[in-house]
């Protein structure tokens, strides 16, 4: 059971990352490339949260229902890190979309094959 969970959950996260990377490398549409980046980020974030999980653990919050009892809590550090990673991903995506708008205004297309003033 443990092994199955390990493979399936990490596998899902890596599948998402693979999907995102594939879109970044192969897609011709700039918007699809940006979507690929966000999918890549989601996979990574999922991986972070999954790695921080501890079997039978609850959320690391000492609410009144939990205080004073002995409970297992999941690892809070990856959860804090993933929050940072999400925010950074958001910032990068926003800048990427702004650049896509600029490129579209200049070339009137979002096809990467037609935007080749610089060598890719």
């Amino acid at each position, binding site marked *: 059971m443990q092994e199955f969970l390990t493979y399936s959950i990490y596998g899902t996260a890596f599948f998402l*990352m693979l999907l995102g990377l594939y879109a970044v490398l192969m897609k011709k549409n700039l918007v699809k490339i940006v979507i690929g980046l966000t999918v890549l980020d989601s996979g990574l974030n999922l*991986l*972070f949260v999954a790695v921080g999980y501890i079997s039978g653990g609850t959320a690391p919050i000492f609410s009144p229902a939990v205080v004073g009892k002995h409970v297992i809590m999941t690892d809070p*550090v990856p959860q804090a*890190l993933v929050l940072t990673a999400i925010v950074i991903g958001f910032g*990068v995506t926003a800048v990427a979309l702004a650049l896509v708008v*600029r490129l579209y205004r200049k070339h009137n297309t979002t096809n990467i094959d037609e935007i080749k003033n*610089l060598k890719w």
Partner: protein
Amino acid sequence: MVITDPVYFIALPLLTAFLLPLFGKIYKPLIGIIPGLVFAFLAYISFDLYLNLVPGKPIIIQMAGWAPPWGINLVFSEFSGLIVTLITFLAFLVWVYSYNFKKVGFDNSKKYFTLLMLMVAGSIGVVLTGDIFNMFVFLEITAIYSYGLTAFYKGRDSAEAAFKYLLLGSLSSVFILLAILLLYKQVGTLNMADIAVKAQSIDPKMKSIIAILFFVGLGIEAEMFPMNGWVPDAYSQAPGPVAASFAGMLAKSGIYALIRVFYTVLEVKGVFDLLLIMGLLTIIFAEFSAMRQKHLRRMLAYSSIGQMGLIMVAFSFNTKAGIFAGLFLMFNHAIIKTLLFLSSGFLTYSTKQKKIRDLDGFGKIMPFTSLMFGLGAFAIVGLPPFSGFWGKLNMLVATADSNLYFVIALILLVAVVEIVYYFKVIGRLYFRQQHKDVEVHNPTWNAILAMSILAIVIIGVGIYPDLITDYLTKATNELFDKAGYIHSVLPNLSLN
């Protein structure tokens, strides 16, 4: 005592950047003046702190009252302090140069100065922090700065260059995050010194995977071959002072992160051989590409990659002589490349197509800028009596120490290549008839001031290298002394 806290290097620029839009509402010229005051103050306190640093006793600052490894800490040591001093000094000069950048107007100069402040905070953060995830956050700050400012001017292919960089930068951040995650799950901590202690127990196979992830991720930031496709485009499309800040500050923080991770945090067998090979490939690729460039900025960008390759090779020896040479090269690269980019800003501004052949005869019509460019070119190829000479000389000594004679041959060959393409430009500047239709933009007084200060530093260090060798030696000892770093961050730890 409060005033000498290294936390000001990050808190103060951030506070200024947050408040800068409000200053602009009160009185418009404040937008330009306040960043200058802050940069001047930062440069002053960094010099002050650095000169008063007691050897072997780095200043360790903990955050939020938690001692490392629980809280984030800042380490102002001989090595990181040197880089921070360099960054604040260059930031001040870049500000002096771009103070009345009238071309872009009020709204944009507000954004430009805000972004510049944030970038300075970010690159100082990368250098000072003692926490690996914190380093990643600051690296991302510098990265987003570069995406934004590469695309600053419209009407060029700047958005394309920025998008290209953004794609590679995102991949780099994914690699770094994966490495950090694996590392955290192995040792349960994010503090660099603590990781360095516990890293010995990591399974070697796992360790090498982590090392490769860090290598690729940080290599993109440090302009390593083959992940440096973004560099020439970004450098050539960004405004002049921004390109100077890329070369002077961003590339420095990238290589610093790479060095810190592999010297202090993770000791992996074979990583320095890999660094040597990649560094050599970077040099060969960059210098021969630079020779073929027709655009001045692209040529400078490739030359910059070549210098970074040389720095990587110097650090890959893993000897004291190598580190010393690498630090000298880093210092030279920061100062000289900044001068070259700043002077090329006015040279290319006056040409239409920014090509090298448009520069014919500029030595007569723009004497000062051409002189500065020529001086920078002489210095970067390593001719005496400029500081570049001592960097290359130390590099050759260090290579000979490590018995890598083919590397010596390669460095000399590359120096010849550098001489060829830089002298091509100088020849055009001074020994050609000028074109008719040039619109001369002579540098403003503040740009002249900034370039003169850099030139004075280059000549001063060139004539009297002892000005800095003492500090570089101290920084070398600090970087080489891993146990000392761990001990000063975690004083209560018993090393057994």
